[in-house]
């Protein structure tokens, strides 16, 4: 028995899991409908049709089922399965208790679907019934059990990664462990990918959704992609969220796509399919629901300018808590309508901005590769630890927090203090050159507050 298989048996031998039938799961995936694989949809989709995926997860099977019915009526392309926060912390005991309370009292006691507690045998019924690709959204540093359950259920897109699911959410979870736990996930996804269409992995580009400069976003997307491809994953989605400047989004998308291809080829994984995902604004939303809808629509337009393969939507109720299924379905219908009427998109290329951003990303990547550690994940770990990668507004103790960013007059995010991040001097001068640096720090702090709340 391989070491991986040994580890899998330990992981799946859990008091909250019914007997895990490896052979049956393998059989299921081998014969599963191709419609369940988002990788299959990416492959066959018309060049112009962006897939639309909302957000959403409810504790009980019945409510999740009802949500999916709404989504299908609204012409959804990809169904979401958002996991509750207890499961994210591997606290299956609390999740079980809260699930029972939710079922008995008809009140939601969890902010998502406790997949491990429901189990794959139950969940698979729902997934195969709707026969649409499902995307797993969680935020779990140790997602081994969760992902095994998801794949066995027929969920063939797994979001997350060791960096993107840790640095925005946790203060203390050990980053080195997260890398190892995700290595397991990549391998399981890779193994199953040989049976039918490939399992798609997706990185979570928005990170802290707070003034993260595109160079940092792209570097982390590329690194999580490489960590996944080197384990054998054959379909991977890089992603980022609306940043506040249409032009910066277009430039970010172009550089991200170009460099993803470049670095995938560098490790001889040019055969893997790389997709681009765009998140509608992930920062603070306006309380005014009409304004929220304007913001959502604008994000859809920009996603098309960026030529995203998939868009992940928000709702008009974003600022006021967990959206109703009606609001969620309405966003899907509106987004599909907008995509239908959005024609004749111009081809936009900003060569100067692309060059600057490319140089920045390549310099950081080179610094990571130059770390003396023996494996890529250790190089990345060290680079975060020593501040070569620095994520603004990450709460994690390992993050340096020495990079400072603000918006320029056109609302592009610019680096005005690079910390330990090896932004080349020429690029650094360019970034600072776009900003008014004569202000004192108090004014800059006020600007940052304003820049964060730009959409409100």
């Amino acid at each position: 028995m391989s070491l991986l298989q040994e580890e899998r048996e330990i992981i799946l031998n859990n008091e909250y899991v019914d007997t895990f039938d490896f052979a049956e799961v393998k059989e299921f995936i081998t014969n599963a409908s191709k419609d369940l694989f988002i990788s299959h949809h990416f492959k066959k989709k018309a060049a112009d049709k962006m897939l639309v995926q909302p957000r959403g997860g409810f504790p009980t099977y019945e409510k999740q089922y009802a949500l999916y019915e709404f989504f299908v009526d609204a012409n959804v392309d990809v169904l979401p399965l958002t996991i509750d926060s207890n499961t994210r912390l591997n606290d299956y005991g609390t999740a079980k208790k809260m699930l029972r309370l939710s079922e008995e009292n008809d009140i939601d006691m969890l902010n998502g679907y406790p997949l491990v507690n429901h189990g794959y045998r139950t969940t698979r019924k729902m997934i195969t019934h709707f026969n649409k690709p499902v995307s797993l959204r969680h935020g779990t540093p140790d997602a081994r059990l969760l992902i095994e359950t998801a794949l066995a259920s027929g969920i063939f897109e797994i979001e997350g990664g060791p960096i993107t699911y840790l640095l925005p959410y946790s203060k203390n979870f050990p980053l080195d462990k997260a890398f190892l736990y995700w290595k397991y996930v990549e391998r399981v996804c890779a193994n199953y990918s040989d049976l039918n269409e490939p399992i798609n992995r997706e990185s979570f580009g928005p990170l802290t959704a707070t003034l993260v400069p595109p160079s940092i976003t792209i570097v982390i997307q590329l690194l999580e992609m490489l960590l996944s491809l080197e384990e054998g994953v054959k379909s991977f989605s890089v992603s980022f969220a609306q940043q506040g400047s249409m032009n910066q989004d277009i430039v970010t998308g172009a550089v991200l796509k170009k460099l993803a291809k470049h670095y995938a080829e560098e490790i001889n994984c040019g055969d893997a399919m790389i997709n681009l995902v765009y998140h509608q604004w992930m920062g603070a939303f306006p309380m005014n629901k009409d304004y929220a809808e304007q913001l959502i629509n604008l994000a859809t337009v920009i996603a098309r300018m960026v030529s995203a393969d998939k868009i992940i939507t928000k709702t008009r109720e974003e600022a006021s808590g967990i959206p109703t299924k009606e609001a969620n379905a309405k966003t899907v219908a509106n987004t599909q309508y907008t995509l239908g009427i959005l024609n004749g998109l111009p081809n936009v290329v900003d060569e100067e901005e692309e060059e600057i951003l490319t140089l920045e990303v390549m310099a950081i990547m080179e610094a990571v590769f130059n770390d003396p550690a023996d494996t890529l994940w250790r190089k990345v770990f060290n680079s975060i630890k020593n501040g070569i990668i620095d994520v603004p507004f990450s709460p994690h103790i390992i993050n340096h927090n020495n990079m400072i960013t603000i918006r320029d007059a056109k609302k592009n995010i610019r680096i005005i203090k690079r910390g330990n991040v090896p932004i080349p001097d020429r690029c650094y001068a360019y970034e600072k050159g776009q900003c008014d640096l004569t202000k004192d720090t108090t004014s800059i702090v006020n600007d940052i507050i304003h820049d964060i709340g730009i959409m409100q």
Partner: protein
Amino acid sequence: MKVVTGVVGNDIHVVANRLIDLSLQARGYEVFNLGVNTYLEEFFDAVIETGAEVLLISSLNGEAEGWGREVPRLKAKYKKLDDVIMMIGGNLVVGTGNAEDIIPRYKGYGFDIVCHQVDLNTGLDSLEEMLIERNLK
């Protein structure tokens, strides 16, 4: 002038924390930022360890009420904390509440400066005033 700061409890509001850090540095303080998700004991430990003159706790999710009550008991365990200026700011209650009720309550817990939903710079201005008042600046 040394300041220990951080966000108390199970509160992950990192944006405010980073901005407080930046603003304190801009005003010339030496900042020891414990970050988000910090327990009360950690604050007092850090003040002792660094010899800080100011402890600035922030709380955004409204849970400070629960922690506040424990401040007098905990503070009593530590020696040499009597001269430290204790300041708290942010959203100090769950739901809505008015400053007239909240400020005396937190002063009762042992805080010298209480800023409920007060603009960051205004809050830091009151800190300066108190430092001048106490001849520390």
